[in-house]
């Protein structure tokens, strides 16, 4: 059946001028992207002396820059006791704490809120839905100074747990993704559970959340990658807890001897890129599988 629908989907469209043009564009895109990454990977195995004369070729002598960069990948943190340098091991830990915690709260809150809005017949749910739509459509610019003040006032500033709470909001596209799924679940599921004596918490945790666990996982993974790669929030809000991404930003702009060469910078980039690339390649089918979002009315 699937084969038949697949055949129907692609037949007649296969050889049109449009698809040939698109194929050419996509092949060019793929070559450029893969070319960039391969060039960076190969450059990370060159010495600076070799890079000066051999910018685009294969390394004549393969140099292992990774240990040096891992050891020198330091981020200065300015404290009352003076400047302290955070190494890559600790940066990985901060990145994990920041990215996992924020991804979890930033997925859980829209999931639970959308469940309440989609499955309970209260008008307040409609108001929440409207708020999500309005905040997506109406842009607020330049509120960051104010947010810093509020974060400092609440004691959230420069605390990883503070950012978990700050990121735990229901606004944005993923609310709509979960809302669409919860709306589509037949009411019979709840009714049958209630007949068996299940309460609201049991229905939520034993029936509803397991039904959306795939989407929950995908959204959390997308958000994890987003927070893992984010250096701008830690640059402002986590001055004492530099993440790997912030370390990479520091390295990309460093003038320090030894680290400021192109091969060393490419090595740093590879150190940051490879773990995420591995996660992506393992989970890519689930990551780019089933997320959909509809229109926004209101």
């Amino acid at each position, binding site marked *: 059946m699937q084969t038949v629908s697949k055949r129907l*989907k692609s037949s007649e469209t296969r050889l049109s001028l449009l698809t040939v043009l698109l194929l050419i564009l996509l092949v060019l895109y793929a070559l450029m992207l893969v070319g960039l990454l391969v060039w960076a990977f190969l450059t990370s195995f060159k010495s600076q002396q070799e890079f000066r004369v051999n*910018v685009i070729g294969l390394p004549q002598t393969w140099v292992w820059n990774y240990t040096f960069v891992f050891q020198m990948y330091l981020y200065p943190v300015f404290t009352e006791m003076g400047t302290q340098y955070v190494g890559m091991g600790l940066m990985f830990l901060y990145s994990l704490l920041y990215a996992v915690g924020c991804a979890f709260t930033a997925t859980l809150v829209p999931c639970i809120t959308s469940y309440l809005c989609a499955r309970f017949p209260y008008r307040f749910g409609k108001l929440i839905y409207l708020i999500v739509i309005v905040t997506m459509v109406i*842009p607020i610019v330049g509120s960051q100074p104010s947010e810093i003040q509020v974060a400092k006032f609440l004691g959230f500033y420069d605390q990883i747990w503070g950012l978990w709470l700050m990121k735990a909001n229901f606004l944005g596209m993923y609310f709509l993704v979960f809302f669409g799924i919860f709306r589509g679940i037949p009411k019979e599921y709840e009714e049958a559970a209630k007949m068996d004596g299940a309460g609201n918490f049991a229905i939520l945790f034993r029936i509803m959340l397991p039904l959306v666990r795939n989407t929950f996982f995908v959204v959390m993974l997308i958000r994890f*990658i987003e927070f893992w790669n984010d250096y*701008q929030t830690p640059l402002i809000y986590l001055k004492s807890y530099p993440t790997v991404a912030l370390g990479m930003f520091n390295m990309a702009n460093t003038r320090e001897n030894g680290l400021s060469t192109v091969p060393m910078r490419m090595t740093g980039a590879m150190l940051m890129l490879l773990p*995420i690339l591995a996660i992506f390649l393992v989970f890519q089918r689930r990551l780019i599988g089933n997320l959909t979002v509809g229109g926004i009315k209101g």
Partner: protein
Amino acid sequence: MRAAKKTSRLGVFHRKDILFYCALMAYPVLQFVIFYIVVNANSILLAFRSYDTMTGAVTWVGFANLKEAFRMMTQQLELLDAMKNSFLAYFVTLVIGTPLALLFSFYIYKELPASGIFRVLLFMPSIVSAIVMVTIFQFFSDRAVPEIFTKVFGAETYQGLIENPQTRFGTVMFYNIFVGFGTATLMYSNAMDAISPDQVDAAKLEGAVGIREFVYITFPMIYPTFSTFFITGVATIFTNQYNLYSFFGDGSSIQTYGYWLYVKVAGAASQSEYPVLAAVGIFLTVIAVPLTLIVKKLLEKFGPSED
């Protein structure tokens, strides 16, 4: 059972349901109140305050910050440039990036040759840190591209594409389009997958194949998803940095408002610098809100019909 059931303006409900609802809704609502309503209200108040750099004492300064912000926005070359670039960058990504994202999604949806690989590759830049991609792209443009040009076109020395002020803006825009297909392609192609095969078959019988299928069937069916992306895109005109901070740190010669605001906030030595930034934010919001609403209305009015 019936005694527990009440009817009010909220509808039919049980007391236990209400308690459950309130318990779970409490945190999201509190978070929204603090980090949206209070933050934005404070941002408005901030525009009317001034902080003493030495003591931190607060004084109310009326419209002084707004006047200063208006003067800066209308007279400072840097900000005039930021306004022009913010619109130009949005326009370029809209005119080039959006149609390409739609057409690439169409290619993937039709499961044409290697579509699975292209889907993964188009999404890949979205999972790679901006700072990593930018670092690689920047050095490739400035070091490898001139080398390739020299090898292909002869012994002349070429300047890097980012180094060269004449190609810098175009290269940065190219980069933003290049890495920007991920989420849009994912959402569009998933929305296209939801189109009923019966509708597509019926249209094919009437001759809608290739570009005609895209224009008359596929695009109208995913229009709600498209308009969502379009509208939320307009809302980012003044917040999008176009990766300028990743390219140039705080020393970019190209300015957009998203970049300028971030640089000012990240580099602020004390909160005495915040009020004018908040005032600039108010002006930008005043421009962006009606613009977004107009675009939304136009998309609703002139969008294709699903019938």
